[in-house]
């Protein structure tokens, strides 16, 4: 009787594709390079999975087989998050209007 959550997620996914399509087309061409770096940064939201994986270990064995991959993923994703947002920030700070 209840709707499977998968159906909802599918709806969210499909609507997000529409949003993505429009939102990216509306990005001005002069900001396409920052666009590339910022999408890189936001795609690191996969860190959410990495954190769950890392914290799944128990106290006796913090670095077990599974959690160690989580910790590695955290490092990689963190490089991207900080690197991606900061380099974008650095680029965007350079776009200035003519001083009058």
């Amino acid at each position, binding site marked *: 009787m209840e709707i499977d959550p998968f159906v909802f997620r599918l709806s969210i*996914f499909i609507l*997000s594709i529409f949003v993505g399509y429009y939102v990216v087309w509306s990005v001005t061409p*002069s900001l396409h390079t920052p*666009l590339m770096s910022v999408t890189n940064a936001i795609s690191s939201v996969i860190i959410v999975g990495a954190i769950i994986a890392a914290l799944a270990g128990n106290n006796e064995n*913090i670095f077990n087989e599974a959690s160690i*991959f989580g910790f590695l993923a955290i490092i990689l994703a963190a490089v*991207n998050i900080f690197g991606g947002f900061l380099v974008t920030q650095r680029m965007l700070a350079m776009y200035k209007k003519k001083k009058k």
Partner: protein
Amino acid sequence: MISTNLLALFYLVSGVLFILALRGLSSPETSRQGNFFGILGMLIAVLVTFLSIGNFSTSFIYVILFLLIGGGVGAFIAFKIPMTAMPELVAGFHSLVGLAAVFVAISAFLNPEAFNLGVSGNIKLASLIEMSIGAAVGAITFSGSIIAFLKLRGIMSGAPITFPAQHILNLIILISIIVLTYFLCVTQLPNLFWSLIAISFLVGILLIIPIGGADMPVVISMLNSYSGWAAAGIGFTLENTALIITGALVGSSGAILSYIMCKGMNRSFFSVILGGFGGTDQTTKSGNKEQKPVKSGNSDDAAFLMKNASSVIIVPGYGMAVAQAQHALREMVDTLKKNGIKVSYAIHPVAGRMPGHMNVLLAEANVPYDEVFELEEINNDFANCDVAYVIGANDVTNPVAKTDPQSPIYGMPILDVEKAKSVLFVKRSLSPGYAGVDNDLFYRENTLMLFADAKKMTEDIIKSF
């Protein structure tokens, strides 16, 4: 602790903030605010994940520690990287996302209980499929981006590496991936999972090595798109709205950017998606035209011409990036303006080696973005301008794109520099650009070639002024 519903709501909020982050890029004014939204979204996603676990044990300290280590490295890179290295940087960062996706998938495979996906050896079928797709695409993204990075950085030769039976090999691999995934779903054997990942790494390498170095930007964007879909796949596994939304955003963004590049280069989108292109570098059809007469000059000639001009349009290209000439160029323009000359910049959609490449470099050199115009905005102005100063650009000015249907760049829109009263070409030789096509403009009456490094020549012109 935080309830599941609240958690889902917060992930929705960060998804929406990511949308707003991209939306901000629709104009430079709102872009910084957009980036702030993106950071906020990420912060929320990370914080609520912590709260949802609530297990603030010793592991938690390590999580923070590793987060800071990674963050420190990222921040360091972000501050040190020169703007000219943006293409490599994006490729490099990209490989990291791919690898992170692989690691998360591995971890979920080893410890499915932590993710509510069933128990080891008996993972829910849907989750297992999503996980395999995520791992495979992540691995392809990783190794592919690494190759792209090496080629762009010049560590590996940019020449396409081809070998016989390449396509048959790729086909065999593709089939074996599907077979592997099938048996993995049936048996849940870890070894099959490992093999799947290993083969996917191989695919990433094999797909990218036959592609020429200069085509890497399209490849990066394409991998970006792939990785977006992979992220969405993992989002389904983790039942995480923020990841699903982000995956779709990144997927669209990569696809649209590669579409824009392909259109700008007049290549078919499908030949890119399927991979295996490149090799244009070999088709250099030069040599037979070298004998034609060419007018060449020095910085004094250039300065003289510009002094007598009332309007100048600057056309930067890949050579400006290579020579890092953007700062010198800005200074030259300042000098011109002081002499009462009207100056604007014309940017072709695929000038340079990545979308928006020239804009970022000019912005770095403090060129205000309202002096920088897109092709459609400025193309009619060439007819009324006295001097077109083409600095390190070549293909994007080549009139053969309009006249010769045989040419590989036929149909690509070009900047009509030929219509300017005089054209100054700053480049080191008569050799062709990225597309390997000779440029007829070099031999025209109103063209003056300035053979030199772009930065050197520009500085000399300033001195001669």
